């Protein structure tokens, strides 16, 4: 197996090359029953991935291992284990700068250990995909599902998408490479799922056949060419601007940081197309009770929506699928009818509630309630959501 075996019609493993539109929207699909870890393998298998670097940490170890199997089976071009997560994220950057379509996975403490690399990724405009299976931040050691780590990722300049379940993880992983590699976008993509709730949960999923794969990445369409010591990013890594001229350095950084964030915003039309919208709305469209959530929390909110309907109470769920770029227009439109916006979350700080509050400031009169909120890996039973909603509604009625 070698990149030399690639033809215009087939990749090195013999899979027929197809467009992302065909893969996501047109190819026939069959039902399978698998976990989020297993579906990660299935998605990567169909993406003509050049390189992957891994490091074990619960709950993403299975996914990392299965990507390794893909290498052994001849689907992934290069695979190795890094020294630790900092090493992995640096090595991933090296692969991507050399022009490789590159993927990696990590969780919780691994994410924090690697932290310095993420703004470096976006700054060097590499379209790496990180599949982040969120786990608690050690305080002390925990391996439980908790998505506090996402708050640390918000301002790294990377795109952040949030998949709700096994199906979305599959589809988003495929769309992720495509949107991240658009020449006018070309920034890293972090595809987040809640660890365990998705990685270790087995459910049905519809998959296209595995004898087709995405067209290979073309690094020569990138805004920064593949690494070369005389050209950026190689040049500015070898000779940092600050070593040459303070003036050039701050002028470059001032404009480049805006540009990185503009590049993230330029992903919006592509993401709308490949994700079928940046936000999905379910339930009663004119409801005054609105849940705004992402990931597993939106699943729990949908369960609450169903129970509230049985009680004769209207509600709807606005599921945010992208966090960076934040879907301001979609959120405002979807919450027009809202009087009470509940933001259920699996972390202690309520990072999504803060995002929602900031986005709607001065534009909505709805009361934003950051509840229920569970942390440390606790589950959020539908009963807890109903309790919050009914208590709030009854309070308003003076009951």
């Amino acid at each position: 197996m070698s990149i030399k075996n690639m033809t215009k019609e087939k990749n090195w493993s013999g899979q027929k090359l197809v467009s992302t539109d065909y893969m996501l929207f047109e190819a026939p699909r069959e039902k399978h029953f698998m976990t989020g870890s297993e579906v990660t393998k299935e998605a990567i298998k169909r993406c003509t991935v050049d390189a992957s670097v891994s490091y074990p940490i619960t709950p993403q170890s299975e996914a990392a291992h299965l990507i390794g199997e893909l290498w052994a089976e001849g689907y992934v071009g290069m695979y190795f284990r890094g020294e630790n997560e900092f090493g992995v994220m640096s090595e991933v950057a090296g692969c991507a700068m050399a022009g490789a379509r590159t993927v990696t996975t990590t969780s919780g403490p691994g994410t924090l250990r690697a932290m310095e690399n993420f703004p470096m990724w976006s700054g060097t405009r590499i379209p790496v995909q990180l599949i982040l299976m969120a786990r608690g931040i050690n305080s002390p050691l925990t391996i439980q599902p908790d998505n506090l780590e996402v708050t640390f990722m918000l301002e790294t300049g990377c795109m952040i998408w949030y998949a709700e379940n096994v199906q979305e993880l599959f589809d988003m992983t495929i769309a992720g490479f495509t949107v991240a590699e658009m020449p006018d976008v070309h920034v890293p993509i972090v595809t987040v799922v809640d660890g365990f709730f998705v990685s270790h949960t087995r459910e049905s999923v519809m998959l296209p056949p595995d004898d087709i794969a995405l067209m290979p990445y073309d690094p020569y369409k990138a805004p920064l060419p593949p690494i070369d010591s005389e050209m950026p990013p190689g040049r500015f890594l070898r000779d940092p601007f600050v070593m040459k001229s303070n003036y050039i350095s701050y002028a470059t950084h001032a404009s480049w940081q805006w540009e990185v964030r503009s590049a993230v915003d330029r992903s919006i039309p592509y993401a709308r197309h490949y994700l079928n919208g940046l936000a999905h709305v379910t339930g009663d469209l004119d409801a005054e009770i609105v849940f705004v959530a992402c990931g597993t929390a939106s699943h729990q909110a949908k369960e609450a929506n169903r129970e509230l309907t049985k009680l004769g109470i209207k509600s709807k769920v606005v599921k945010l699928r992208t966090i960076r770029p934040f879907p301001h227009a979609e959120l405002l439109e979807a919450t027009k009818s809202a009087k009470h916006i509940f933001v259920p979350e699996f972390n202690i700080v309520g990072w999504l509630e803060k995002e929602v509050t900031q986005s709607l400031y001065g534009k909505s009169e709805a009361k934003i309630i950051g509840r229920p909120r569970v942390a440390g890996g606790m589950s959020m039973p539908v009963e807890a959501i109903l309790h919050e909603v009914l208590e709030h509604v009854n309070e308003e009625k003076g009951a």
Partner: protein
Amino acid sequence: MAKDTSMAKDSIKVRMPALGGQGAVTAAHIAATAADTEGYYAVSNPFFGAEKRMAPSESYTRLGTVPIYDRGEVIYPDIVMIYHPQVITMGKSYTMPFYAGIKENGLVIINSDIELLTDKDRAFLDSKNVKVLTRDFTKFAIDMAGTELATNMAMLGALFGALGNFGKPAIEEGIKDRFLKKYVASGGTASLDSVIEKKFKKKRDLIEKNLQVASAAFDLTEKWAEEVGLHQMLKTI
């Protein structure tokens, strides 16, 4: 006699407290796969933590005729399946008492050779109209399959016998899917294939034995359900 369907729900949640090594995670996986093959919505997951033999271990299965969004630990179960007496006697459970959160008209299946419920437990469960079946499913597994490792298959058969929604072919599908690894074993390398082929006879035996245990437990609880007038818990599709 036809089952009372008036209390059947469109989705039910099953909590399986067990001890590490008993195979509760495998049982939940097979139960969900089996239900999925019969066209029901199904989701399974383990409790999220470190695994140790004889330490508390828990898994969950959700079954429904409607899409199931609920994820994670089952805090309010319709069915609780106790895989080992120590769950009750030594409190090896993530929830105390073992039936915490159980819903009205629920079901408890206990694997034990002796009666473990106190009068207080029984009064509480009666007040919730929860039916309780205590049987020595470990002995059942040893007698039928020659190994206590098949206890989880007995528990699985017991669950499906009590529910009545899923037939034995579905259990067979679930067991085969788990042990023949239809989706994951896509390696395709000649060496891997030959290793699997060598083990195949042993694997067929394993599947056969597991099926016998599950099938016998299925018959047992099906009969018990009729005797005690257990209502239909999950709607049929």
